[in-house]
């Protein structure tokens, strides 16, 4: 039997899974040395058929192989017949648990073992794809060709590019060893942020000191993966990034949706046309009509809102005309069909015709005809809303990438209070659902325990236009920035408490909103302007506020209604998001925002709250610099922060800066200084206050004691720190502490205790889904 390639595969599987040859030997009842000879040597030692079968069964029982085809491939490589496993064996675990489908590599050059698990982040579709069968088939073939690595789906807004790309990606998910990954760029307006958005979609950790593009090329270079970059038109200057990634990663393919091409070498354009329409002059019977994509989509969507609706001989001509009127554009068809609930088809057609006339005499005349049609339909759909719905829809355009019900409610309250207008007559949720029914909004899966909504980018553009026309855009962007500052500061505390994973999910869901708020405030701050409004809600509960290092000032520093300076807002927001960025490993993003906000000049007579915000940002930057091993900067920032805090009466802020200074001191082996600054910090804080912060101070005191072999004190400090973290409910901090303690126990030569402690730490990470902290 020629077992050479079989041996290669088995060794590769073991290497990738973490199992050892010794464990495999034990599982198949062979002496490890015998198995080693059979798997590693070129001599006469051959695996028997029974041993091959046992190896495959063992790999299946360890979930190292997960599909039946992987088992068959291994049998084939070992030149053993598939029927050497009886039907009964195939039907019995572990072989019966193998999935029937295989993640087959589409790259035929060279041997590549299938991945252990297939991965993707594609959102689940809420409706079925209609009228695109041929397009899916052609794209599938195109993307399977070895010479095709970049395909751009080009089409006007609302032509269904995203939906088509998602479907094709899901069809191809099994063809890429490392799966398919969807990167939503609708909420990204700065091309510079595209690499970071890809990193976040891949849920990978960028290198601490590498640029995001460098991190990506390193990560992707040996991966076989399909990236779907959605809504690329607004970040088209980032096309060169796509080119760089493709050049660096031979196993990478990219599917882009955009209104225009990227104009890169090797780019394949795929025009996404409107859905098929019948000829208006020769209308076929209803069954034949339903073969047309446009008709099918209209009828299915109409039936979703009006279950009694049916295509019949009496309404067929009208429906064909409606579909023709909107040029078969999927988004326009959905908007029109959503109205069938209240408008019978004949009336719907009449209204659509009137709307087109009014729009054609308006500002849309210069648009290409298909965009004109879409705009016309959106306008028509918008005008059918009640005045309250119209206003709400336009205002919701201020959110980027989605929003929670709470955020929408808060916005409505703030605006109404400001305008002294009447509150909403009905429930906001009902109104949002109504807008969902009208296909103007999309309901998202619940994230971080919150109901969430979003709107398609094309509709958001329209909403923002309406806001600008009403003169509300700037004011609402100010509100948006204030609101998300509040979320960030509450979340900063939340990440240190018992619900830290819920907060982590919320922060991740609001990523685009934070960026938009930071960009807006930074722009305002650079222009020397003031955010005109304060959010009309409490930033956090007072109970939490008393526990917060360096943040109590926000409640007292500036009076409500007095206006919050944009510079203070930027500093506070970047500081508040630092723990989240650190948790996710987004250190380059943290560094870049913190540096940008710290570069803002302050007025000579800057208020105390602005100075406090700067002091906090300096100390957060010290933390990030230390994580990146940039110790000189870390020390410089921490020292500046300490000096600034000393000018103010804020023990919590000063103690936080001292914690960060202590950390840098430990990293530089200056344990005496670490001990001294931690003691200063503890001296500043009353015993029953600042639970979490005192926990941090004791942690670094313990580390410093451990490094100076003062193990008795070290244990006492760790115990005090652990108690405080447990009081605060911060499981992540407890795990960090156990890791430090485990390290110190090694120095103390207590290895068994160290293993025990480190396993507890690992258990803590796994049970709390904090693998990223490993």
């Amino acid at each position, binding site marked *: 039997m020629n077992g050479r390639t079989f041996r290669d595969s088995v060794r590769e599987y073991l290497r990738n899974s973490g199992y050892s040859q010794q464990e495999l030997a034990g599982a198949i009842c062979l002496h490890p040395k015998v198995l080693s000879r059979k798997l590693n040597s070129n001599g006469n030692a051959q695996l028997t058929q029974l041993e091959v079968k046992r190896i495959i069964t063992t790999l299946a029982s360890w979930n190292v192989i997960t599909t039946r085809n992987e088992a068959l491939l291994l049998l084939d490589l070992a030149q053993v017949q598939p029927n050497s496993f009886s039907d009964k064996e195939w039907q019995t675990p572990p072989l019966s648990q193998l999935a029937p489908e295989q993640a087959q590599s589409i790259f035929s050059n060279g041997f590549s073992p299938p991945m252990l698990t297939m991965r993707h982040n594609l959102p689940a579709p809420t409706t079925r794809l209609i009228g695109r069968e041929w397009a899916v088939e052609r794209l599938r073939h195109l993307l399977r060709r070895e010479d095709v690595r970049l395909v751009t789906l080009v089409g006007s807004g609302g032509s269904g590019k995203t939906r088509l790309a998602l479907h094709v990606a899901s069809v191809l998910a099994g063809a890429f060893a490392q799966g398919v990954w969807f990167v939503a760029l609708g909420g990204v307006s700065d091309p510079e942020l595209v690499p970071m958005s890809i990193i976040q979609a891949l849920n990978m950790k960028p290198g601490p000191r590498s640029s995001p593009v460098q991190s990506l090329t390193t990560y992707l270079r040996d991966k076989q993966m399909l990236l779907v970059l959605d809504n690329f038109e607004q970040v088209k200057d980032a096309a060169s990034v796509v080119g760089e990634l493709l050049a660096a990663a031979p196993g990478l393919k990219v599917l882009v949706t955009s209104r225009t091409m990227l104009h890169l070498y090797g780019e394949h354009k795929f025009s996404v046309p409107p859905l098929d329409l019948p000829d208006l002059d020769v209308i076929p019977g209803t069954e034949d009509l339903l073969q047309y994509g446009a008709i099918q989509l209209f009828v299915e969507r109409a039936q979703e809102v009006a279950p009694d609706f049916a295509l019949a001989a009496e309404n067929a001509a009208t429906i064909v005309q409606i579909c023709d009127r909107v040029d078969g554009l999927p988004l326009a068809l959905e908007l029109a069909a959503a109205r069938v609930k209240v408008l019978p088809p004949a009336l719907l057609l009449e209204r659509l015709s009137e709307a087109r006339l009014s729009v054609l005499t308006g500002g849309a005349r210069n648009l290409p005809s298909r965009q004109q049609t879409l705009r016309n339909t959106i306008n028509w759909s918008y005008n059918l809303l009640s005045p309250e719905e119209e206003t709400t829809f336009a205002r919701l355009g201020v959110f980027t990438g989605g929003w929670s019900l709470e955020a929408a409610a808060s916005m409505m309250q703030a605006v109404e209070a400001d305008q002294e207008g009447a509150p909403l007559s009905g429930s906001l949720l009902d109104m949002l659902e109504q807008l969902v029914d009208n296909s103007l909004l999309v309901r998202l899966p619940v994230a971080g325990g919150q109901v969430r909504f979003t709107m398609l980018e094309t509709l958001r553009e329209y909403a923002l236009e309406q806001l600008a026309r009403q003169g509300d855009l700037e004011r609402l962007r100010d509100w948006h920035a204030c609101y998300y500052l509040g979320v960030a500061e509450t979340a900063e505390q939340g990440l240190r408490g018992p619900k830290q994973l819920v907060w982590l999910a919320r922060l991740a869901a609001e990523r685009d909103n934070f960026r938009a708020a930071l960009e807006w405030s930074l722009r305002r701050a650079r222009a020397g302007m003031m955010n005109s409004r304060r959010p009309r809600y409490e930033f956090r509960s007072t109970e939490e506020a008393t526990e917060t290092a360096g943040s109590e000032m926000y409640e007292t520093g500036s009076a409500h209604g007095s206006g919050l300076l944009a510079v203070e807002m930027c500093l506070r927001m970047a500081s508040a998001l630092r723990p989240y960025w650190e948790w996710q490993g987004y250190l380059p993003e943290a560094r870049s925002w913190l540096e940008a906000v710290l570069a803002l000049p302050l007025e000579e007579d800057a208020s105390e709250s602005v100075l406090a915000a700067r002091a906090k940002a300096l100390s957060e930057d010290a933390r990030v610099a230390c994580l990146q091993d940039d110790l000189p900067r870390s020390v410089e920032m921490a020292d500046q922060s300490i000096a600034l805090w000393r000018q103010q009466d804020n023990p919590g802020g000063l103690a936080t800066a001292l914690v960060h200074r202590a950390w840098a001191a430990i990293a530089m082996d200056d344990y005496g200084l670490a001990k001294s600054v931690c003691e200063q910090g503890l001296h500043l804080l009353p015993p029953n206050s600042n639970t979490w912060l005192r926990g941090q101070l004791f942690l670094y005191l313990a580390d410093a004691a451990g490094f100076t072999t003062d193990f008795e004190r070290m244990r006492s400090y760790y115990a005090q720190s652990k108690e405080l973290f447990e009081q605060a409910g911060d499981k992540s901090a407890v795990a960090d502490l156990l890791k430090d303690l485990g390290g110190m126990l*090694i120095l103390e030569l207590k290895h068994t205790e160290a293993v*025990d402690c480190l396993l507890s730490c690992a258990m803590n990470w796994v049970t709390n889904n904090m693998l990223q902290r490993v």
Partner: protein
Amino acid sequence: MMELAFAVGMRGEPEPGLASLQAAQLGGAAESLQNAIGFSSWMKTHPITEAMLQYIRSRVDEQSWEEALAAGRALTEEQAMALAYRVGEGTLS
């Protein structure tokens, strides 16, 4: 993970050579994870742990050590955690 690698290696059970290879595998996994995340462990540079590393490494031949290290580097986060459990629990049993 790096800490666990040292602890397992220094403990040297159930058999010193195997413990060294397990330590190398865990160390390789820790190295790639730390490179990815950005935390550089003090254990890599501390004089005492440097001496420990030499001791753990001296118990196996160069090629086996390098292979185990490479195998550890190739692991995903999930696989590395599974390895940590198996090795850690095996050591204690």
